[in-house]
């Protein structure tokens, strides 16, 4: 029987990819951010997941605005990165897990989520950077991928409540998957930031802290605001926290234990955050 080993959450700012490429991990600007990842690396080395189910948002690489799915599940044998417009070095490709993808798709539709399915899907920095951060020396990613894209770009966006429910439906699908994979769920993006408008540069540590404090113990607390109010509190791109909420749902309905947290302001225009959680309540030995 498959096991959900835990959840890893991280920001996915494009500038991180550039910093990795240039080897700036020890640079004073970057160090407090990169120092948040060795504990995640150690946790992954210990838990050894072989599949990642990743909730993220596309930034105009795979989806254009001619067709914009609210929820899209990848079902491809392979996922490639491509030029996102800046001519940066390409990220490594991922091996897919079509059988598990279709299992998730079948279960989600059975549970009345009207998703889009993608047998071809390019993946951008929002998917690759989280892996670059925790497998810095890998020649190939050590796990297969099931990507789930959430529209955080073009309003109306799905509500936080709906994203949490989507995640919980994915959890249900993972629990009834007959394989013996070890699965990590991931949510990428955020936390508070705003790139556009006169309020560009907006960051809200108090709201981010509310989200991080509640995500493990009471994720429903993050679903009480409308998307509009969440944008007010977290910024136009801070709404990417929807990916975190969905990933938390995929960890399961019960309580989870926070194992690690790092929060740093700023990376580029963003309040950058990293968290690791395991399902259940850990009892001290």
């Amino acid at each position: 029987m498959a096991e959900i080993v835990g959840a890893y959450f991280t920001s996915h700012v494009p500038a991180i990819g550039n910093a990795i490429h240039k080897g700036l991990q020890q640079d004073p600007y970057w160090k407090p951010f990169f120092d948040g990842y060795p504990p995640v690396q150690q946790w992954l080395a210990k838990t050894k997941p072989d599949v990642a189910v990743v909730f993220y948002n596309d930034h105009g690489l795979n989806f254009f605005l001619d067709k914009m799915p609210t929820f899209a599940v990848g079902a491809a044998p392979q996922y490639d990165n491509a030029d996102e417009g800046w001519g940066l070095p390409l990220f490594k490709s991922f091996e897919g897990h079509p059988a598990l993808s279709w299992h998730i798709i079948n279960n989600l539709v059975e549970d009345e989520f009207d998703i889009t399915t993608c047998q071809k899907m390019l993946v951008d920095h929002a998917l690759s950077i989280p892996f670059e951060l925790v497998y810095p020396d890998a020649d190939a990613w050590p796990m297969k991928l099931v990507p789930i894209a959430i529209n955080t770009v073009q309003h109306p966006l799905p509500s936080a409540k709906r994203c949490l429910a989507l995640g919980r439906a994915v959890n249900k699908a993972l629990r009834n998957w007959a394989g013996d994979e070890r699965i990590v769920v991931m949510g990428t993006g955020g936390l508070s930031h705003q790139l556009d408008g006169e309020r560009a540069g907006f960051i809200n540590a108090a709201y981010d802290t509310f989200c991080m404090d509640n995500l493990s113990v009471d994720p429903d607390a993050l679903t009480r605001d409308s998307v509009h109010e969440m944008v007010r509190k977290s910024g136009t791109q801070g709404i990417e926290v929807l990916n975190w909420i969905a990933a938390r749902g995929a960890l399961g309905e019960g309580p989870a234990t926070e194992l690690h947290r790092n929060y740093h302001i700023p990376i580029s225009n963003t309040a950058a955050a990293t968290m690791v959680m395991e399902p259940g309540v850990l009892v001290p030995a």
Partner: protein
Amino acid sequence: MTTPTERPEPIPGTHLFDGEAAAKGFEINAMCYSFNDAANRQAFLDDEDGYCAKFKLTPPQRDAVAKRDVLGMIAAGGNIYYLAKLAGIFGLNVQDVGSMQTGLTVPEFKAMLLAQADQIKQLEKANG
């Protein structure tokens, strides 16, 4: 919660990319999406007028692009994730784009971002 006919209170300095913006901005966003291809970025640099005409930019979109006016592009329906690809052609990053929208110089905008680290200290203080 608001009813469908009721519009929530606007967020100062914030322009939500909704259906109205997406419809209005289709052309400029389509042009920016094309910049995922290096050859298209070069074609824009070689003949900006011709390239904008090929994508049928509306007059407000063309004007804002000509003036490198980010707020004008957003008002004309541009979405920041797509506009970031255009900015990249000019070697501008999101701090440059932030500066252009806030009236701060780039060093001032970067300093404003760095200063927000104080929010963490204030929270720690408030929580003892």
